[in-house]
């Protein structure tokens, strides 16, 4: 083990000597009281509206995240209006990859709100610390209790019921901390039936069952070092996907890691944290509950990843930096087996992911330098190496004769930004450049049925790297009573990967209408804008509003799919003593720039009104919060631009929840 440390040291020192690229680090801890040192302000896992949120609902409250929804469960997060291939989604820096070819299991579906402490969202190349990206990064931070000088127990239990889909949930977590040892544990159950839309019609196949548990143990090996092991186990069963022709029978994930952390009192390096991890995801679909299916098909998928993430925080005077080494190996396997109507006949078999290995290594650095009291420069970069190997490359060679079994790519990334504070005004401007490799599906997918546009998708191993050039800027004003901030970003993406109709080839899945191959557009442009404002009307009455707009076009000026129309959210929050009342109004305007070419139709405008109230009181030393509320109070019938197959969203939902914490 010692030798390993020395190797890492040398590696880091070497990197520091020729550090060309880097980013922002505001503080570094000096004593090991926190197990985590996170530079960026964290968001707590609860929204203002609702305290018992799912991870999806929580992410939805961020203004640069939107969702593709295939049902009530496992929403696919879109960052800056870009799908998950373009962002890196990690859990404490660990890469986890879903095992479903139809993206029914984004990583966010394998965690639960009670084992997360925060979600760290970074836009664009600033997020390249965790790996090559175009859209940015979403890092789900797990809960980890700090060491304490006295023995302490803390915990919370939360239960609730939501009337629309009869969701009943129980979430519990317990922590123990002492001077030397910390233990965190959590467990959760959620069970929901079908939900009802705004016309009070049942949306069939929208039920779900989820079980999640996690454990984390930390041991202080010296005043300045600690080891920690973590594990999350997640199991979802009998999950309906109303927008898809099949459901989920079972998915299971185990996410494990062991880390070592060292703090330094003196010198340039302040924290060094190294973690090895292993995770395995299995995902089995089920179409037996859909009698309309002509052909029964098994579609199991497996994804196994192991890796290393090692990071160091540096600080000297006005300069601070973060260096991170990432390395992982992923094996993605997905099978399809179709059963003929005459079951005595031979089944038909193919791989939709023919045992695709991805190996990725990157070194990334973010630097931050305070030039003066009120201005700062952030700059950084990453250099990644991506390797793919398709074990059964003969599948890929059917559409791409002679393609190589192995493919290596170099993925560079650079970014820089400048922040300026002038009295109550703040400004920032930044730019970035980065490459990303095609995902497993984009590179090696084989007849992956997409029920949105009803095409079978074929990957292309020889796709070029997607290259992003981005610019971003923000301006804000803040005083005691109010704040307003405008943020814009613009991406010019070369070799933008998207599915295009292949005139050759016929579909394999009986619902599909044709075959699409992943190809590179010459370029695409994306523009995102968000305007946030808050105003304290009275001491106990606060107003908040958000307006977002996005526009994206391909190289011929046509619209790209899944781009959020002009949307708004406005909320009022009243707090007096132990009573809180919140109300919010949100909606999208009519989707003007939709893309029929990619299977979209125009989605009309909608507006949703939500309201909730909570009351806090103490039972002995136990803090108790009772909450009652209603989402979609007016029972509006609607579906959003990103609802797969225009399935209607949930109608009026009355929710209750009770939380005890000590």
């Amino acid at each position, binding site marked *: *083990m010692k030798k390993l440390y020395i190797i890492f040291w040398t590696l880091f020192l070497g990197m520091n000597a020729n550090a060309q690229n880097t980013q922002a680090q505001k503080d570094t801890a000096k004593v090991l009281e926190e197990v985590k040192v996170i530079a960026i302000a964290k968001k707590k896992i609860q929204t203002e509206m609702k305290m018992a949120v799912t991870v999806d609902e929580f992410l939805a409250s961020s203004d640069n995240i939107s969702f593709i929804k295939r049902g009530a469960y496992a929403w696919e997060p879109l960052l800056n209006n870009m799908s998950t291939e373009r962002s890196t989604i990690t859990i404490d820096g660990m890469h986890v990859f879903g095992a479903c070819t139809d993206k029914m299991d984004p990583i966010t579906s394998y965690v639960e709100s009670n084992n997360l402490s925060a979600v760290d969202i970074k836009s664009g190349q600033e997020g390249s610390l965790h790996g090559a990206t175009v859209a940015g990064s979403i890092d789900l931070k797990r809960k980890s209790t700090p060491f304490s000088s006295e023995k302490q127990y803390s915990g919370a239990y939360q239960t609730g019921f939501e009337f629309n889909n009869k969701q009943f949930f129980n979430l519990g977590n317990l922590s123990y901390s002492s001077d030397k040892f910390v233990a965190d544990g959590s467990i959760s159950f959620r069970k929901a039936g079908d939900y009802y839309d705004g016309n009070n019609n049942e949306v069939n196949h929208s039920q779900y069952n989820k079980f999640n548990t996690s454990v984390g*143990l930390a041991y202080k090996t010296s005043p300045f070092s600690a*080891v920690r*092991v973590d*594990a999350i186990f997640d199991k979802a069963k009998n999950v309906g996907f109303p927008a898809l022709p099949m459901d989920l029978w*079972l998915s*299971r994930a*185990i996410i*494990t890691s*062991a880390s*070592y952390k060292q703090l330094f009192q003196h010198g340039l390096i302040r924290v060094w944290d190294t973690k090895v991890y*292993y995770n*395995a995801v*299995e995902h*089995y679909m089920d179409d037996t509950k859909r009698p309309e299916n*002509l*052909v029964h098909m098994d579609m*199991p998928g*497996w994804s196994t990843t192991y890796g290393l993430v090692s990071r160091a925080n540096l600080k000297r005077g006005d300069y601070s930096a973060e260096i991170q080494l990432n390395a992982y190996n992923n094996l993605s*396997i997905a*099978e*399809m*087996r*179709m059963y*003929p*109507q005459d079951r005595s*006949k*031979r*089944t*038909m*078999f*193919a*791989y939709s992911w023919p045992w695709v290995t991805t190996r990725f290594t990157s070194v990334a650095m973010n630097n931050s330098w305070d030039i003066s009291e009120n201005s700062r420069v952030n700059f950084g970069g990453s250099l990644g190496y991506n390797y793919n190997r398709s074990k*059964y490359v*003969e*599948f890929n*060679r*059917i*559409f791409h*004769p002679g393609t190589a079994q192995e493919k290596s790519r170099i993925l560079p990334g650079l970014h820089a930004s400048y922040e300026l504070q002038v009295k109550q005004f703040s400004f920032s401007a930044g730019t970035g450049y980065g490459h990303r490799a095609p995902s497993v599906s984009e590179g090696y997918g084989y*007849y992956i049925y997409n029920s949105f546009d009803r095409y079978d998708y074929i990957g292309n191993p020889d796709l070029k790297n997607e290259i992003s050039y981005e610019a971003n800027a923000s301006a804000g004003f803040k005083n005691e009573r109010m704040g307003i901030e405008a943020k814009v970003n613009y991406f010019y993406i070369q070799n933008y990967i998207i599915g295009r109709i*292949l005139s*050759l*080839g*016929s*579909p*394999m899945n*009986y*619902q*599909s*209408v*044709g075959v699409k191959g992943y190809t590179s557009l010459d370029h695409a442009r994306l523009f995102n804008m968000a305007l946030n404002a808050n105003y304290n009307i009275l001491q106990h009455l606060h107003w908040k509003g958000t307006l977002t707009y996005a526009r994206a076009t391909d190289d011929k000026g046509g619209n790209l799919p899944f781009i959020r129309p002009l949307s708004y959210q406005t909320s009022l929050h009243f707090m007096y003593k132990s009573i809180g009342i919140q109300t919010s109004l949100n909606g999208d305007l009519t989707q003007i720039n939709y893309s029929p070419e990619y299977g979209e139709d125009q989605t009309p405008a909608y507006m949703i009104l939500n309201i909730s109230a909570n009351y806090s009181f103490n039972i002995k030393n136990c803090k108790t919060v009772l909450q009652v509320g209603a989402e979609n109070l007016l029972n509006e019938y609607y579906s959003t631009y990103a609802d797969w197959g225009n399935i209607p969203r949930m109608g009026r939902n009355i929710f209750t929840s009770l939380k005890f914490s000590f």
Partner: protein
Amino acid sequence: MEKAIFFLAVVCLSVISCTKEKTDYEAEIATVVTEHYEFKEAAAISSEGYTISIEALNGTFYKGYNEIRLKITDTRTNENIHASSVIFLPVMSGADGSNTSCPHLYDLTYNADDKYFTGYAVFTSESNTNGSWELYTSVIINNKTYPAKQNITVQEQPNKNLNMTAFTGKDGEQYIIALVSPQKPKVAENELVAGIYKFNKPTTPPSGSFPDPSQFSYAEVNDYTLQLDPRMPEPSMGNHSSINNKDLTQQSDGLYYGIVNYTMTGNWTLNFIMLNQNGKILKGTEVPTDFTPGVEGVKSELYIDILF
């Protein structure tokens, strides 16, 4: 740290045991396809102190295309004997007294490196009560002819990838198309090899001692084209096809070579259109290319079904 590693190891092991087993892809195809590599003796004929050993894959003659190897040894010394020529003629005697043959190489070619004669026979039926097969050979050693015959058994070909079809073309000739390769296709681009044979109708009545080779003459047809359209006939597959296939054309060894792409395992129909050297269609029809889920795929009037 050790505890941590132990803990991780336990967790990892518990996960490696997946709920559903992954498919063993190599074994998957082998469930319905038997592949034979080895030539074994399928028949032995003794003739005046010489033993003529006829080898076929797996030591069995199957309906369809059979590559054969013929070795001659001295029965007493067991030494390999070099013959100057070997002629080979399979004949089926029907229960009704008819005699027919099948496509075969009459004058076997000598493989000097491995010291055996090589040829082929495309048996058009299995041995059964309606007919039995006999091999007539004639070996010339030191200018002396040693004729011999041997009853053989032709078995059903269990591997559908070596299927054959016999038909009458629009020119009134009798044709046989037999699949030669691949024995064991993959979900991949496969080189498809077939033999196309024509019965040379005798112009004169039989003469001489039985069998008169002129009555049983078959030939490989030259410069034909076999247009290929592979499709999955299963109704749920909706007439699914593949891309980048190539029509079969004749190569120097007389066989026809093309490319077939199988996109998944299962039943496939190779729809053919056979054109003669002048591009005239002798057999076969175009098949619909529409995607028709729920409807069994329409086949060409000339096709061979395979399964893997």
